[in-house]
């Protein structure tokens, strides 16, 4: 489903060359894969390349058998909008929109009409346990609730792959565990793959596949 082939993405950090180097990996459909490793090992960089947020200097990103890393930005946008979902460490919800509107956002960008978009967004928010927080703005939600809203936003357009960057880093243990349980459930339930970057044992323990990174290379 997702294939990364010989990905190299380097940058200067404090006078040293950092990034990821010659990474190849495969994430099958419906799996919860984790990129594990210490801080600075290149997890986020690799996730951004895989999510078409950044461009590799060398290598290819292949999604559903199609090379997507060489597409022009307009096409990459479409791939992100229709085939990928994103969950960020700091939730990254739009603060001026309610939870429901945040989740409706990808659908509306796809051109889905207001009423069906609202219905689908409401359904998935209820699924992640936020049926009673639809009109709350991000500032009125707890960290766990915000991250569940972000997961709902990532899943609402039925992507094939959700990329999650340190999804539990801003949550305490009491919230991190249930969140990962939810992600694992949704992965099985919807046949969607998750590729999460994390060094949290709670996350790693839930993974079907773990890729360990160290100094930008796969161990």
């Amino acid at each position: 489903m997702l294939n990364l082939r010989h990905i190299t993405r380097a940058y200067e950090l404090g006078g040293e060359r950092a990034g990821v180097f010659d990474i190849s990996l495969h994430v099958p459909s419906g799996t919860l894969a984790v990129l594990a490793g210490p801080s600075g090992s290149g997890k986020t960089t690799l996730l951004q390349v895989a999510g078409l947020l950044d461009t590799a200097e060398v290598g290819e990103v292949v999604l559903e058998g199609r090379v997507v890393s060489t597409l022009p930005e307009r096409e990459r946008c479409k791939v992100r909008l229709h085939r990928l979902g994103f969950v960020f460490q700091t939730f990254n919800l739009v603060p001026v929109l309610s939870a429901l509107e945040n989740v409706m956002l990808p659908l509306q960008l796809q051109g889905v009409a207001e009423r069906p978009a609202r219905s689908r967004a409401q359904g998935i928010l209820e699924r992640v346990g936020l049926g009673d927080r639809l009109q709350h703005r991000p500032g009125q939600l707890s960290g766990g609730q915000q991250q569940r809203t972000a997961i709902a936003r990532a899943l609402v357009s039925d992507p094939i792959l959700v990329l999650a960057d340190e999804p539990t880093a801003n949550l305490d243990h009491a919230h991190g565990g249930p969140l990962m349980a939810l992600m694992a459930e949704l992965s099985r339930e919807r046949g969607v793959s998750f590729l999460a970057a994390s060094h949290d044992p709670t996350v790693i323990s839930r993974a079907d596949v773990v890729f360990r990174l160290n100094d930008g290379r796969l161990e």
Partner: protein
Amino acid sequence: MILPRLALRNVLRQKRRTLLTLLVLVAGYVALALAGGFMAQTFQGLADAAIRGGIGHVQILPVGSLESDEGQSLEHALPDGEAMAASLRKDPAVLEVLPRIAFMGLASNGTRSVAFLGTAVDAEREPRFMAISDRLADGAKAPGGVGSRWLSTDPAAREVVLGIGLAKSLGVAVGGSLTLMSTTPDGALNAVDVAVAGLQDLGLKELNDRSLCVSLDTASALMNAGPARSRLSVLLRHPEAAAQEGPRLARLAGSGVEAHPWFELASFYRQVKLLYFAIFGFMGLVLALVVLLATANTLLMSVMERLRELGTLRAVGMPPKSLLALLQWEGAMLGLAGSALGLVITLLLRFALNALHLQMPAPPGTSHGYELNIHFVPMVYLGAFLGLQAVIQVSAFFPGLKAARIRITEALRHV
């Protein structure tokens, strides 16, 4: 609908900054709209002054008379101007036709002679359509002007109405007498004694110092003019049709004549209009620049504060052009709110300023001031809105471009 909704929420996010930007926009709108209303008042006043000052809505003249000077009296004349006027009066579009003779000569009080520019008019018809009473009322306030009245309609009466400056030069007052000297069309010198019926203030010093007015009968006696007239001032039932009616009336009047709408002949009106457009155009440019900078600054700050949010929008699949559009929407909403508030404040200020009956100083070249009366001109309000909106859309373009060009990974790292 996501972009307008998002734009509206973003505009309302930083209320204080939005309010400050709105204040600039409102000030810009109010300045443009009030200046437009003031200009409309000035133009209307000048147009009225030109039309009711003697030009009429359309003037019928002998062909070529505007391009050449007269060597002697009535050299360029409508030979049977009275018959032509009678014929034109029958046209349904015509309200009235006022024949006139323009002539020059010397006015003498017996000890002193002063050159004058004379106009001979129909003493009966003229006061019904031209601004005679206003000029006489102002003339009555001048030294020697007490008791000023219009020319007698008696064909045998030999009377004159003098400009206040000319009366002062000749040292005559109402009730006094003068001798007017001019030439006949065949070049002979002739003179007629006239009584001063009144003094008039024409608003322009140069005119007050040189002009006088007599009846057509008095001018005929002085110049042996017969039915010849220098020109016909035509008043229309629908003044706005002056440009279209002119050529038709010229054809109707016969050969050897040309017609000019009033605005082609009102040189002072055109000069002031050009001057105002230049002054207020420059003011508009300065205002546009202030609005442009204020709005661009607000939107740019807004972009810089929302970098991570914009990066997130790009990450979830919003294309760059949508971010450009988002900033355009934000600008449009600021502009709409600014114009709406500006319109309300303009109308309130207009009401208040007009209610104060403020006296404006005399414009350059004129001898008296006027009351401020800012006109209600919907087209000016619409123009101010469209102009402001255009400036705002331009100012939103650069922040929009900044937003559209962000690098997603850098924006997501932004704190």
